[in-house]
């Protein structure tokens, strides 16, 4: 097992703290139209370092913060945490789990947290590099990405091969 759980707070439609527990073997995310499944995918994409709001269907990065519904008012912060299994010690930390989080406030820039303490983006990228996680495009394929990957003038295929090189 690699990713043990995902924690969302204030990310898009996940206003309240939500914990998604994973494990070995195939996990299927299911539910009706508009319930938030693709939002979970985008939450993972965001923590993996996606910098383009358009790749998250937004115009600005602040668009990922829960902006209210019929039952709740907007919130001012979004945070997503990925918790990785480290029971085999593959990552250079003396702990059975390693957590990587990204946080954004309405006024500002993204913050990154490694095992709950604030850190540089570079440290997060090191963790990803050591765990074999490349660019978000390497880990995520959405239905809309099929046409992008097959497009004639695209650089998508080259990016993936370079990640594997």
């Amino acid at each position, binding site marked *: 097992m690699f990713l043990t759980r995902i924690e969302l707070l204030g990310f898009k439609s996940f206003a309240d703290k939500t914990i998604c527990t994973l494990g070995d073997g195939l996990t299927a995310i*299911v539910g009706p139209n508009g319930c938030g499944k693709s939002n979970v995918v985008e939450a993972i994409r965001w923590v993996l370092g996606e910098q383009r709001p358009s790749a998250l269907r937004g115009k600005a990065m602040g668009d990922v913060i829960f902006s209210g519904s019929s039952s709740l008012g907007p919130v001012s912060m979004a945070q997503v945490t990925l918790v990785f299994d480290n029971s085999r010690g593959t990552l250079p930390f003396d702990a059975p789990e390693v957590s990587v989080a990204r946080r954004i406030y309405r006024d500002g820039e993204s913050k990154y947290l490694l095992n709950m303490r604030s850190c540089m983006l570079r440290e997060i990228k090191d963790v990803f590099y050591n765990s074999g996680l490349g660019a978000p495009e390497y880990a995520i394929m959405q239905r809309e990405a099929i046409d992008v990957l097959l497009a004639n003038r695209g650089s998508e295929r080259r990016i993936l091969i370079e990640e*594997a090189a």
Partner: protein
Amino acid sequence: ARDRFSAAYERVNDHFAATFATLMPGGQARLELPGEGSMLTREIEIIVRPPGKRSRPIELLSGGERALTALAFLFGVYREKAGPLCILDEVDAPLDDANTSRFMDMLDALSANTQFIIVTHNKHTMARAVRLVGVTMEGGVSRLVPVELKNRPGQ
């Protein structure tokens, strides 16, 4: 850098041909680098010949054929260097039942080295998952709920 890319390109090309032939038995696919110039900048072209058909520009492929080609490419890359985590969002939507089954077989084959998460509306896909994460929305707020798949084989 160019030699490293060149070596990876050749191996991915072989893996892509193999994964494509598994997803579309009787079909063939290859990558090509047409034209002049450095290998690091030329267009990487995909050439596909579905079973029984002739090779045509990939724009003429059907929706399902295009989805399988894209998946074959991604999984071809994974056979060269497996991503530890792979999230697929409704990539099975254009597939018929037979292709969905072959696609799920390939996820099984790759699961030793990759943790897969798939978002799907497809009952056949759900039936082959080890766990189901249910998402619901109430009053514009999402939350997760446990899910039992009725009629699951063996239940």
